[in-house]
């Protein structure tokens, strides 16, 4: 067992932290909320230039072929700085499944453009049921000649307003088994019949509604196999849950640093408020939970890195992040007193993201249900030994 970060990860941690601190200070985060695109395209170009978009993609397509752990560390830092940008949607939600399920031709056409040109991708999955189960997928794709024709509405698609390409989860067949008959299409965002509108979310983080009206997509734009797309969605979820949890874990570490420093500095009754036991015990409990979350996420990522991805751990990582993020933001703001409730303080910026982070890649009930599934079908040691 080894709890330390490898040389590569330490390097990434340091350079990404420096990069975000310099390129995206909190005032910039505030400003970006008021912009149309929601992120800084200059910073995006720099990220591309530094090769971060190709962090874990194969060398033959222009990537640097790092480990999944490298990406996890990147996401921790992104979350620590709450840097708004379409990195997660492009790399985690689309790039990763394209590497796994794309044909060589598709990969050659797509990956270098992401890595070298910074093409933005996003995943359009959520629909009105918004439950992350396959039965929410109702957007239809019907074959007509050499094209599929897409009709339906996707909701809360992150950065769709800036995306060049959208990976659309569509229904190509309707039957008893909702998992069957789902197909993923790679769709040019400029295709006729697509209408994108930004939804007014608290974080102003560019969650979009996309209406597809008779949108024609060439049939070679299918990712993976027709009707078997749910397998890909699950693959995306397994890894992206851990990466989203890493982002949240980084956010928690930052919020915790803010509140510990604030309570140490703030004086009342002629003493630092951090000397009060009521405050200390709350902070201490959060420290244990945050350290636990950090290692839980890292463990899940480590297993993915070594090819032993564990659905149980992946869900634990995201569920745990969900359990902590809200509590920590709420209590940290309250511990600040009135000043915490003003826009002047950074802490509110973290809390504005709570609800979208909690929903992204599955809420706490969704993941606990997945864990329960794993528990139910796992054979316990005592049964084997005492059989």
């Amino acid at each position: 067992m080894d709890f330390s970060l490898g040389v590569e990860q330490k390097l990434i941690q340091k350079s990404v932290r420096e990069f975000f601190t310099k390129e995206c200070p909190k005032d910039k985060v505030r400003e970006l909320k008021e912009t149309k695109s929601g992120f800084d395209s200059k910073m995006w170009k720099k990220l591309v230039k530094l090769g971060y978009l190709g962090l874990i993609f194969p060398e033959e397509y222009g990537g640097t072929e790092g480990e999944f752990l490298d990406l996890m560390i990147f996401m921790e830092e992104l979350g620590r700085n709450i840097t708004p940008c379409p990195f997660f949607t492009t790399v985690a939600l689309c790039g990763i499944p394209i590497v796994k399920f794309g044909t060589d031709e598709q990969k050659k056409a797509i990956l270098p453009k992401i890595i070298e040109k910074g093409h933005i991708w996003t995943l359009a999955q959520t629909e009105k049921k918004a439950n992350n189960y396959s039965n929410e997928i109702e957007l239809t794709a019907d074959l007509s000649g050499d094209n599929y024709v897409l009709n339906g509405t996707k909701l809360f698609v992150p950065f769709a307003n800036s995306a060049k390409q959208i990976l659309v989860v569509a229904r190509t067949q309707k039957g008893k088994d909702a998992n069957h008959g789902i197909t993923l299409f790679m769709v040019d965002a400029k295709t006729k019949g697509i209408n994108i509108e930004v939804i007014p979310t608290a974080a102003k983080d560019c969650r979009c509604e996309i209406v597809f009206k008779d949108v024609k997509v060439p049939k070679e734009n299918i990712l993976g196999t027709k009707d078997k797309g749910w397998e890909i969605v699950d693959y995306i979820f397994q890894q992206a849950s851990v990466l989203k949890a890493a982002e949240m874990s980084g956010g928690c570490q930052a919020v915790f640093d803010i509140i510990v420093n604030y309570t140490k500095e703030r004086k009342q009754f002629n003493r630092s408020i951090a000397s009060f036991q009521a405050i200390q015990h709350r902070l201490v409990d959060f420290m244990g939970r945050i350290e636990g979350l950090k290692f839980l996420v890292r463990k899940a990522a480590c297993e993915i890195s070594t090819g032993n991805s564990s659905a149980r751990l992946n869900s634990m990582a995201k569920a745990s992040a969900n359990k902590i993020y809200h509590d920590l933001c709420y209590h940290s703001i309250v511990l600040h007193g009135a000043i915490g409730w003003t826009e002047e303080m950074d802490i509110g910026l973290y809390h504005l993201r709570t609800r979208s982070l909690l929903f992204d890649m599955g809420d706490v009930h969704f993941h606990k249900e997945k864990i329960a599934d794993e528990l139910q079908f796992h054979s316990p040691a005592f049964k084997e030994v005492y059989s």
Partner: protein
Amino acid sequence: MDFQFGEKEEQFRLEIREFVKENLPKGFIGNMFEEEHTDENWAFAMSIAQKLAKKKWLTISWPKEYGGMGASTWQKVVFAQEAGYWGIPGIGMGVSGTAWVGPSLMLFGTKEQQEKYIPLIAAGDPDGVWCTGYSEPDSGSDLASLQTTAKRVGDNYIINGQKVWTSCAHKARYIWLACRTQQNTEKKHQGLSLIIVDMKSKGLTLNPLKNFMGGHVFNELFFDDVKVPVENLVGVENNGWSQLMTALSFERGLALSAGGACVRILDELVEYAKETDRIDDPFVRQSLADLAIDIETLQILSFESAWKEDQKKIVIYEPSRDKALCDQLLEKVSRVGSDILGVYSQMDIMNKDPRWSKLKGSVEHVYYYCIGLAIAAGTTDTQRNIIANFGLQLPRSY
């Protein structure tokens, strides 16, 4: 980064399970602090202790020259986990024999003390069973304020005072006693000493203190002019506090074995829920999953503490962190477990009847014993104070 045990450790795990299969009754679930309740439980625990001694597992963390196994950190971790999971009885030699009396004697004891006491513990001998005399009626969390005195008279110490909440004293041959050898010191931590006292000494009276469930763990001890030879002093006179702190630091496997015990109860609860069809209840599913997350988290953190020790990094607040989380987790295990057992969660833990007590009464046992554990070795809030001071560098609040 690597979060897996090595092949050697997994092999060792199988060996332990083989031992369990051979020596424990089928389906046995050992409960914490249950072995000292009855003579029957105790006899069984001691018989296992002797079997463990033969394998050197009783003193797994001790160096070989003292009769230990000289195991690696990760073998120790695996043993603690498995001991918790299977509830292997007899591993403590009382409260403290294997955990801190032996290791402290190796560090501070005289050669004569080492030769006299250490082999008895390592062999699983009834005379190697120890209790620890720290707490007093007016010295709980504020341990350094203790008032039991040992006055030097010729070649003896004359001990007077009272100890309380002394677990396992009714089974122990010796007590590891913290007492005051110097009065009126500048600070309360000064002037303390550690002294070994034979439980058969004249003037030592034991009064059992049953807990509210009817179990016998605690005792109170009265020292009335108890005469102890000076050679029973451990280490340096008046330097007891630092020795005591060192001794406390040996007691770090608790979260590891409690983690193992929690995994077992979770496994049992899942099987129970399956057998009773409660597994289809969304509330039950969510509760079990929630528990599984917290158990996994505690385990990872306790592994991290072990890893830091293994790397010779300074471990300061981590054991307190693990203990505080462990206290909360055990309470949660008992609550979730009780909710799943429903009406059967109200059974008497002192008279377990297989007709009524589900899962051998283990859930009810944790339900009441998690309270004792949250108090023992520093209450949850005392741990929080330590973490605040030493982990977060916050000003002292007390």
